[in-house]
């Protein structure tokens, strides 16, 4: 299995998956079913996480395909622009959906404004992903094109021009202050995220048993904020110097561990087992194992991030 193959497999998750999740969300309004709503919100979070490798494998494919004579670069670039726009909205949708789930734990229900936000963001995402998928299809499927020449020559913008891959790359590499500033922000995001994650998981491992899991969980939005900051700055690095990351084995490991660690954050919010750990309670062995592995994964994300210039291709 190579990078294009991985991309062809994963790209269906944000495209088809989002449609299913939106359908479930709308169905949950019609049937007034909270369980259904939770499933759709959880689905958005998972899809947002999988969008990360779906996007990155696409970028890796683009790097490999750039020189191929049988691929029209213009179509590939438009597919990329649509993908950047769609991925931004997908991640925003996932973040908002997670906040809804967090609110449900805190208030017993999510606020109407938050659910509305998810609905609006997800509809934009579905449209952007459909556009992305369509343009992606045009790269290798001439049979779907009525006029292949027109497709290659199309210039209509698929996303706001300041969000195009080229514009972001130019912003990141075109000013000497941007990269260092993003690095500083990336490290502040790192400790914001890591500090909360350490606190929550060490509670499960028994470090301050007098606090209930529910009380510690209230800090988790700060970790998700740190994650959002680092996804944003991280994607700017990747767009600024794609080859530096996508052809680097350390980056592959970093993203793999990030995906698992991200799923663990979702686990902590939606599964009932950690929530059963009250003030003074010892967490069950399975929860301790989960907490220990989450810490290992976050340290691993940090390790492979720091090793990017040293393992694989040096910067």
């Amino acid at each position, binding site marked *: 299995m190579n990078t294009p193959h991985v991309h062809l497999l994963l790209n269906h998750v944000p495209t088809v998956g989002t449609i299913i999740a939106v359908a479930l969300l709308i169905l949950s309004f019609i049937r007034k079913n909270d369980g259904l709503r939770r499933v759709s919100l959880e689905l958005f979070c998972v899809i947002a996480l999988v969008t990360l490798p779906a996007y990155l494998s696409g970028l890796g494919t683009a790097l490999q395909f750039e020189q191929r004579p049988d691929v029209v670069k213009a179509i590939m670039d438009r597919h990329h622009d649509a993908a950047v726009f769609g991925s931004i909205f997908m991640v925003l949708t996932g973040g908002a959906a997670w906040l809804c789930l967090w609110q449900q734990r805190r208030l017993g229900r999510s606020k109407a404004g938050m659910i509305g936000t998810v609905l609006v963001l997800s509809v934009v995402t579905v449209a952007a992903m459909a556009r992305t998928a369509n343009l992606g299809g045009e790269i290798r499927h001439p049979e779907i094109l009525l006029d292949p020449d027109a497709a290659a020559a199309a210039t209509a913008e698929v996303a706001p021009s300041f969000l195009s891959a080229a514009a972001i790359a130019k912003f990141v590499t075109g000013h000497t202050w941007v990269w260092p500033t993003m690095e500083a922000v990336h*490290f*502040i995001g790192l400790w914001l995220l890591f500090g909360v994650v350490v*606190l929550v998981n060490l509670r499960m491992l028994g470090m301050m048993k007098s606090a209930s899991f529910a009380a510690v969980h209230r800090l988790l939005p700060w970790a998700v904020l740190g994650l959002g900051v680092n996804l944003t700055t991280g994607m700017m690095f990747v767009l600024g110097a794609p080859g530096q990351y996508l052809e680097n084995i350390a980056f592959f490991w970093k993203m793999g561990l990030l995906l698992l660690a991200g799923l663990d954050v979702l686990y902590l919010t939606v599964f009932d087992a950690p929530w059963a750990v009250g003030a003074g309670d010892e967490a069950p062995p399975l929860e301790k194992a989960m907490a220990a592995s989450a810490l290992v994964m976050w340290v691993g994300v940090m390790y492979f991030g720091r090793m990017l210039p040293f393992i694989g291709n040096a910067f």
Partner: protein
Amino acid sequence: MDFLLRLEQSGFATWVREGGTIWGYPFILFCHTLGLGTLAGVNGSIDLRILGFAPQLPLAPLKRFFPLLWGAFAVTAASGTALLVADATTKLASPVFYVKMVFVALAIANLQLLKTHVFGNPRLDEQNLPGSARLLAVTSLLFWIAATTAGRLMAYLGPVSGLK
């Protein structure tokens, strides 16, 4: 300068810099990141709690994290010293390095003040926190943000040796 040069050319410093093994410069750099992530991160979480987030989380048990914080500080300081020795003539000539050291010192002094002034109170969770506690939490966050920023900028501003 002569002393710094000799320091930089010592066996240990040369191994850190040029050993060519992942356990030299790269691993020490990772230890530095792990230490700062734990120290600034857990301290930052405690600051956020003092500022009123996660109000049901009792403050008193957070005292248990202080040994972890001092341990993380030890790891960060030890790894930082090794990184400094490996690159002494450049780093000690960089104004950004001294800015960073000032903010680290302020952040550590601030942490000690949090420990005595806020966590020293045995009836911590029964009384309202004094305004000074909130002020200490804000300055703590600002000092760590400034220290992190200055630390990261050392790779870009002023004299830079090429070591990341």
